[in-house]
């Protein structure tokens, strides 16, 4: 049994007087202990909402969450608020994108780390402080003893993200969710943070769900990758087959549209035409169809199902043939 089994997760936002909006539309995936699973997609594809739903952090009003999120057999969606609070921080850790807005600006770093330790591991303030200094040191913060009494604004972006990771790891969670942990950081700092996450997964056996829009980050870190589009998984594969041979036109298009540092220069990039605003609902067709270079008439009539194959699952009527170079540029 996998550590985390997400089954048919669906999040619908409903505000009075507006059409309901389905942000996550039947997402299923498994995470094994020690495994790194990536959720990739552009803004609005539902990757962050998926993580918030797993953590039970969505607001209590204005949305409907259905499906199952089984953590070691227990469905997290059925737990009471109190039981969920016991889990969060202890079994499930989370690292957010913007470390400045997810740390409390008026509480010293030390106190924010020890809060978790006192709450979940029942440590005394004194013991927790010792442990906190140790944790900060382990995530690579120089002079951790001094940093304990400092406030978030006194730390640099990279250090804040490290502090956030230290808080998430304080109780040695079995599952860590990292939601765009390096997007707000510079590349050299990003490399440090990614190396740290990799090391933590290797040393502690923590399972990691990595949420990102950066395919480069995924290529270096994730064992398995789920590509999301319009709230659904469109392609799911291990990272090697996914990058070597992307079959869904969206994955294929994404890879063709980013300039590569080691690619040939001077070649034109092949963008995906249109933008997310052109999506059509999944009910009668494929949401990607209006932007898809491979679209057939059937794509606008029949909803494609996620079909599992040997190496990948794919949701497409007319996938890109293996070994196809970047699609021809279509005028937007």
């Amino acid at each position, binding site marked *: 049994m996998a550590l985390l089994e997400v089954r048919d997760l669906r999040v619908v936002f409903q505000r009075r007087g507006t059409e309901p909006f389905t942000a996550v539309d039947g997402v299923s995936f498994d995470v094994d202990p020690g495994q790194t699973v990536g959720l990739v997609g552009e803004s609005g594809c539902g990757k962050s909402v998926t993580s918030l739903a797993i953590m039970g952090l969505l607001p209590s009003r204005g949305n409907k969450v259905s499906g199952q999120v089984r953590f070691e057999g227990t469905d997290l969606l059925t737990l009471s608020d109190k039981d969920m609070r016991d889990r969060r921080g202890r079994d499930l850790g989370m690292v957010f994108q913007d470390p400045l807005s997810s740390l409390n600006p008026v509480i010293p770093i030390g106190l924010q780390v020890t809060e978790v330790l006192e709450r979940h591991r029942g440590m005394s303030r004194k013991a927790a402080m010792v442990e906190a200094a140790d944790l900060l040191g382990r995530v690579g913060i*120089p002079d951790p003893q001094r940093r304990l009494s400092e406030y978030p604004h006194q730390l640099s972006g990279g250090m804040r993200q490290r502090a956030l990771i230290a808080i998430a790891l304080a109780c040695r969670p079995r599952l860590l969710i990292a939601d765009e942990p390096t997007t707000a950081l510079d590349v050299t700092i990003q490399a440090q943070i990614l190396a740290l996450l990799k090391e933590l997964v290797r040393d502690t056996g923590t399972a990691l769900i990595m949420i990102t829009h950066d395919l480069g980050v995924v290529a*270096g870190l994730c064992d398995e990758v789920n590509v999301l589009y319009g709230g659904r998984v469109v392609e799911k594969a291990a990272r090697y087959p996914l990058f070597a041979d992307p079959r869904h036109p969206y994955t294929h298009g994404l890879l063709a549209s980013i*300039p590569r540092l080691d690619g040939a220069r001077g070649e034109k*990039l092949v*963008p995906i035409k249109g933008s997310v605003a052109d999506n059509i609902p999944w009910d009668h067709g494929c949401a990607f169809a209006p932007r898809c270079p491979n679209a057939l008439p059937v794509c606008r009539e029949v909803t494609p199902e996620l079909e599992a194959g040997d190496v990948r699952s794919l949701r497409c009527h007319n996938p890109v043939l293996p070994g196809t170079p970047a699609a021809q540029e279509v005028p937007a």
Partner: protein
Amino acid sequence: MTAAVEPAATAAPVGDALVSVEGLKIHFPIKRGLLVDRTVGHVYAVDGVDLRINRGETYGLVGESGCGKSTLGRGMLRLVEPTDGRVLFDGTDLVGLKGEELRRMRRRMQMVFQDPMSSLDPRQSVESLLVEGLRAHGLDKGREATGKRLRELLSAVGLPSTSLRKYPHEFSGGQRQRIGIARALAVEPDLIIADEPVSALDVSVQAQVVNLLEDLQDEFGLTYLVIAHDLAVVRHISDRVGVMYLGGLVEEATSDDLYAEPLHPYTRALLSAIPVPDPEVEDRRERILLTGDLPSPANPPKGCRFHTRCPWKQATRCDTERPELREVLPGHKVACHWAEDIRAGRIRPHEVEAVLVEEDGVSPDMPLVGPASVSEVLNP
């Protein structure tokens, strides 16, 4: 060796310099005090930069946040006042220009900003946004001609002509960036400075804007200065690339050379840190992980500004003498004392202890020196 040099010689565009920057310094004073503004220090945002941009080329400026690349771009347009140095635009020194002369010069150099939402007035229609620049520079030649010009502009950036009546909020991020580009193009500039033109956009849309910039350059013979932190994007569109670190250029070369053989330790680390969307490459490549953070530009390290984080730092010169940007290979300039030795492999990288970054002089927890209130001044 000659083979490695050749592409540099051919890739460097022939043609004269459109812009040349000489010893440009932009320092921002740090003010303290309530009644009397006293300057307690300076942020050395740009501290002695020389560069030239040839007509028709794309110059890419890369660096991490806080390295001064945006300030340099703005300083070149005099959107911030340079402290020292010269900016020669087509032979005219912009730093000395005033009033009407400067205003007329501005028609020839335009800027495209990073965030297309906050750089477009939400209460102006697209038409009014585009016409504003035309009017200011006396290019509005009657209703019909202007209407035609606007439609041309929109079609050049790939927007339907119905967009004229719409407002910025009705467009997606990529479309808004197109409007920003159209606005810059409206006054027929020679130089466009694009400050992070694609970083606020979704990956699938970035390529559209990158291609648009390239097409427009071919069509109108524009010269670009592209400022970005994403080296992959910069490498793709630039002919030459300059790498900035803490207010200074540390390396400058053609984009192919820079990637093929980065000579400055910082450039090496930067290139090795950029993820490549290919697991095989990712598993194989060696990362040069820098320790610590960018030092504060208010208190830059003595000597080479990179020496606090440099894995190749040597016992002498690095911490005492600031290296000049010098030509090490043809067309390839580096500001490193030991560039040749590092290149030949005579110096090996070593471990670096992370140094705490202290913002001396501007630390927010530093007690305010001076009167804390008006009553304190009146009743000493």
